[in-house]
């Protein structure tokens, strides 16, 4: 290997910032994919689940004899058949030491706790035969009263009301509190409230975060192969590494004997951030029978038994001075866990605990959350996880404050937000926001949106009593992402760390193989990470291969959620790449017969300072592969790996502006325009970033307008198909006006911030604010989500003096078994959400 002259700077264009088309696309647009359900192994058996139709019932008997006799049925198992090796489903985040956590077996033996829970499993030679035989399993139940309504559940005890798990003696799982006065991060919120009550403005509201379903497009599927020395599980999961750990920890199989593979995974949105009874059942059955097995859920099963998200009541008190300066914020949450405390479970509202104060300089803050067990599908992370709930609450409150003061919603925000020159800023919740520029994002968004023109149109429509009113909604959001500094997680009693791992292998042929611990399911990691490595190492984008999602290849990682892949995983990647360069330097010095201290790296080559002598990094890789002649004392090779534990979260923010047309005669809400300017720091691939924002927006808009998991009075999920659960179609949505502003994050080398959840977090309050804004002339100050035509129409008619507080009922009243609840009132005279005016 001889040194070559550094002739031309052929790699002068940087990959970072380019709108590279995705490497992932080729297989996806030609159907050459490997979804878990595509996997077929010799002798593979198929599972079908028998599920409870009751929300809460004792299992009195199960007769499996007919099913056992059915054609090609191999076995039928019930909860009573399961032994210790079946394991249990774990909760990784007990948010308090005294949290009540019901035991969560894959298949319960004696009592079902939600409609959809597995009671038996049929194993047959084909999926159709398994499903046919599942119909023959005869289960006798003794129905028990079910705890369904969240507010009733929290009030119940052993003598009054219904308990989801009678043996626990309560439905209350955990109570979690943050108080700025106690934490030393701010003042006493009660003092602020008392002061505002006497001589200021107090906004008191109660908002409902309805229950949502992640509704990823690929139904969950799992294949287990127990043959050979190692047990392999393929699963449509976001978390192959955590899954492997949990299997080992609960089923007695050594971790080193378990290989988990997340092949192509068709979306997750938090819904596949879970360890599931279906996975545990398939694992156990495969081990029992010594045969490969597969289970793929139907969509109805997915909607019914895959975890749900959100589902909170939010009691909120915002204190301000008469001029609109905020002085305190008190948040009292009640969060529905469903019937078990799932993997992250009660931690989801805690992730929101630090975000209610948002971008505003509250001097005093208190957050409490009561998590509650009910007899409904268990809840866990759904895109944003805790932060959309927080953002919704504060952005709705800021609009209410503006309305109270009679000023523009942007004016009251600007009065209270952190100014760009104030960063880094330590918030009342104790977080240090490293960077941001709310003024710039807002200015840009207003310009794109045509804010002033739309306000003028709104006025015209109001003046002319147009039956179609225009509403303009604002959301100036921030979020914390990049989960997470391990020490912070430890202080919050989370069961794992928040680091991430990457390794860079310099192959002999000049190609670069990168192994990452994060596990994509649609985000485009293969493309974005290739861009980062190409720039960092000065190699062609095409020469970089990103490997992921298989614990045998990627031995170390904590997977993908919480907008962490780029900001935590990408940083691990940068550090691994930098280590490669450092390891290459003594090689270069040896090859160029120079002093290692004189070697510098630039654009893929290592050269001697002040000379034209250099050698390509890829040539060093080849030389290290041969290792015929290398420096004394070194080990052969320049491969490197890095594990990175973030020191802080990062804080994307943005200004979202939404215009809706509300037909006051029909209640129909039509999207008119949506503009957002997000600040997500430096952008690796603008094309991918925009795609993330578009998709996030629609999920957030869908919460505002369409989606709701609805249970009937017996606890059956009635929105258990795509007929009833309204995932938006192309015809429901519009094209968006998406731009970004970049203030580099200071918490990672690339200056990036997370983007995966931003659109969802920001858009929901922007849309509801727009709907309410359209209806202000009718005396409406809230419409419960989703803002269906019926609710909007009732809100209009409740506000005109003819309505009552039971207006704007949900489209299924039975969701809670009650009518006329405070959240559903939409009139100005809503007694459940008293609004205290300014001053005395």
């Amino acid at each position, binding site marked *: 290997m001889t040194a070559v002259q550094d002739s031309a700077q052929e790699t002068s264009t940087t990959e970072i910032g380019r709108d590279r088309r995705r490497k992932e696309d080729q297989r996806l647009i030609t159907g050459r994919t490997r*979804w878990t359900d595509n996997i077929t192994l010799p002798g593979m058996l198929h599972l079908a689940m028998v599920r409870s139709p009751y929300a809460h019932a004792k299992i009195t008997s199960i007769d499996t004899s007919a099913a056992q006799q059915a054609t090609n049925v191999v076995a039928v198992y019930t909860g009573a058949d399961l032994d210790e090796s079946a394991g249990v489903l774990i909760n990784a985040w007990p948010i308090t030491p005294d949290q009540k956590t019901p035991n969560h077996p894959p298949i319960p033996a004696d009592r079902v706790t939600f409609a959809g829970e597995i009671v038996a499993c049929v194993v047959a030679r084909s999926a159709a035969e398994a499903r046919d035989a599942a119909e023959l399993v005869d289960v006798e139940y003794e129905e028990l009263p079910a705890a369904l309504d969240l507010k009733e559940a929290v009030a119940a005890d052993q003598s009054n009301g219904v308990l989801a798990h009678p043996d626990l003696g309560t439905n209350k799982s955990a109570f979690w509190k943050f108080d700025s006065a106690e934490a030393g991060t701010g003042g006493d919120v009660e003092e602020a409230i008392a002061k505002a009550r006497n001589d200021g403005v107090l906004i008191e509201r109660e908002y409902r975060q309805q229950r949502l379903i992640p509704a990823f497009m690929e139904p969950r599927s799992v294949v287990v192969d127990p043959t050979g020395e190692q047990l392999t599980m393929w699963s449509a999961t976001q978390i192959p590494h955590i899954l492997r750990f949990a299997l080992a920890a609960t089923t007695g199989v050594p971790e080193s004997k378990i290989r988990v593979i997340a092949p192509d995974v068709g979306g997750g949105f938090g819904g596949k951030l879970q360890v599931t009874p279906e996975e545990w059942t398939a694992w156990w059955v495969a081990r029992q029978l010594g045969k490969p097995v597969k289970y793929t859920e139907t969509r109805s099963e997915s909607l019914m038994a895959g975890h749900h998200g959100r589902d909170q009541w939010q009691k909120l008190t915002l204190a301000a001075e008469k001029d609109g300066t905020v002085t305190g914020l008190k948040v009292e949450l009640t969060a529905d866990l469903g019937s078990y405390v799932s993997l992250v479970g009660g931690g989801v509202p805690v992730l929101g605990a630090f975000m209610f104060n948002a971008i505003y300089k509250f001097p005093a803050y208190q957050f409490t959350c009561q998590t509650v067990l009910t007899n409904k599908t268990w809840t866990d992370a759904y895109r944003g996880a805790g932060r959309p709930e927080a953002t919704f609450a504060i952005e709705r409150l800021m609009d209410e404050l503006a309305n109270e003061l009679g000023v523009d919603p942007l004016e009251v925000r600007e009065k209270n937000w952190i100014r760009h020159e104030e960063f880094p800023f330590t918030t009342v919740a104790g977080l240090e926001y490293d960077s941001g520029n709310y003024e710039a994002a807002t200015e840009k968004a207003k310009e794109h949106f045509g804010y002033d023109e739309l306000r003028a149109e709104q006025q015209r429509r109001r003046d002319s009593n147009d039956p179609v009113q225009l509403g303009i909604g604002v959301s100036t959001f921030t979020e914390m992402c990049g989960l997470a500094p391990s020490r912070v997680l430890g202080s919050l009693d989370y069961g794992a760390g928040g680091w991430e791992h990457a390794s860079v292998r310099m192959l002999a042929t000049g190609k670069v193989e990168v192994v990452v611990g994060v596990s994509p399911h649609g985000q485009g990691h293969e493309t974005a990470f290739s861009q980062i490595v190409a720039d960092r190492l000065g190699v062609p984008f095409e020469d970089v291969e990103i490997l992921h999602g298989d614990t045998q290849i990627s031995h170390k990682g904590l997977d993908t959620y919480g907008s962490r892949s780029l900001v935590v995983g990408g940083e691990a990647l940068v550090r691994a790449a930098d280590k490669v360069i450092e390891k290459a330097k003594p090689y270069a010095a040896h090859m160029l017969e120079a002093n290692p201290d004189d070697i510098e790296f630039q654009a893929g080559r290592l050269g001697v300072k002040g000379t034209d002598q250099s050698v390509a990094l890829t040539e060093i890789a080849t030389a290290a592969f041969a290792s015929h002649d290398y420096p004394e004392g070194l080990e052969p090779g320049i491969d490197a790996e890095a594990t990175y534990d973030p020191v802080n979260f990062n804080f994307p923010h943005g200004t979202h502006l939404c215009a809706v047309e509300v037909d006051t005669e029909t209640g129909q809400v039509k999207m008119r325009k949506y503009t957002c300017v997000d600040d997500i720091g430096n952008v690796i691939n603008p094309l991918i970033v925009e795609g993330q924002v578009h*998709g996030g927006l629609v999920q957030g808009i869908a919460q505002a307008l369409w989606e709701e998991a609805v249970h009937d009075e017996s606890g059956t999920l009635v929105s258990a198909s795509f007929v009833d659960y309204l995932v938006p179609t*192309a015809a429901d949505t519009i094209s968006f006006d998406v731009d970004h502003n970049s203030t580099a994050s200071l918490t990672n080398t690339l200056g990036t911030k997370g983007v995966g959840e931003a659109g969802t977090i920001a858009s929901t309050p922007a849309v509801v604010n727009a709907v309410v804004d359209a209806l202000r002339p009718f005396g409406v100050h809230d419409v419960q989500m989703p803002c269906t035509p019926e609710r909007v129409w009732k809100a209009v008619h409740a506000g005109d003096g003819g309505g009552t507080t039971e207006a704007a009922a949900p489209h299924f009243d039975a969701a809670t078994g009650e009518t006329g609840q405070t959240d559903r009132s939409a009139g100005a005279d809503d007694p459940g959400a008293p609004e205290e005016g300014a001053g005395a």
Partner: protein
Amino acid sequence: MTRIELTVDGARVSDDVEPRMLLVHYLREKLGKTGTVIGCDTSNCGACTVHLDGRSVKSCNVLAVQADGAEVTTIEGLAATAGTDGHLHKVQEAFHECHALQCGFCTPGMIMQSVDLLNDNPNPTEEEIRLGIEGNLCRCTGYHNIVRAVQTAAGTGGAQ
């Protein structure tokens, strides 16, 4: 069991199938055409969309026996049957170019439906595109870039 004979992605195939077998199951389980996927059980999502004698159908909503004697094109045969000489079909190219897919699970059905839409209406407006793909759900993209992709394909003669 019923004997069926049909052409799938240009190849003649013949099998004995249960009369109740859905076309999508036939494609996936008998022929290994796993490019066509199943996303729901109520024919709402459109992930399983293929062409049956040149028109888009949701293959979860067609029995295999109904395809007897027919010509079926799936995402795997789209480019070849469109005579693109080994290249991608223009709608496939447009989906790649416009970043109209993320997880890609809905993509085969979305592409097959978009091709059908453009066959019917080579120059659709945005509204016509949105209505034309209304029967196909996507959870990742918010449809923004899918609409752009169909427009792009239309502008470059995306219809077969």
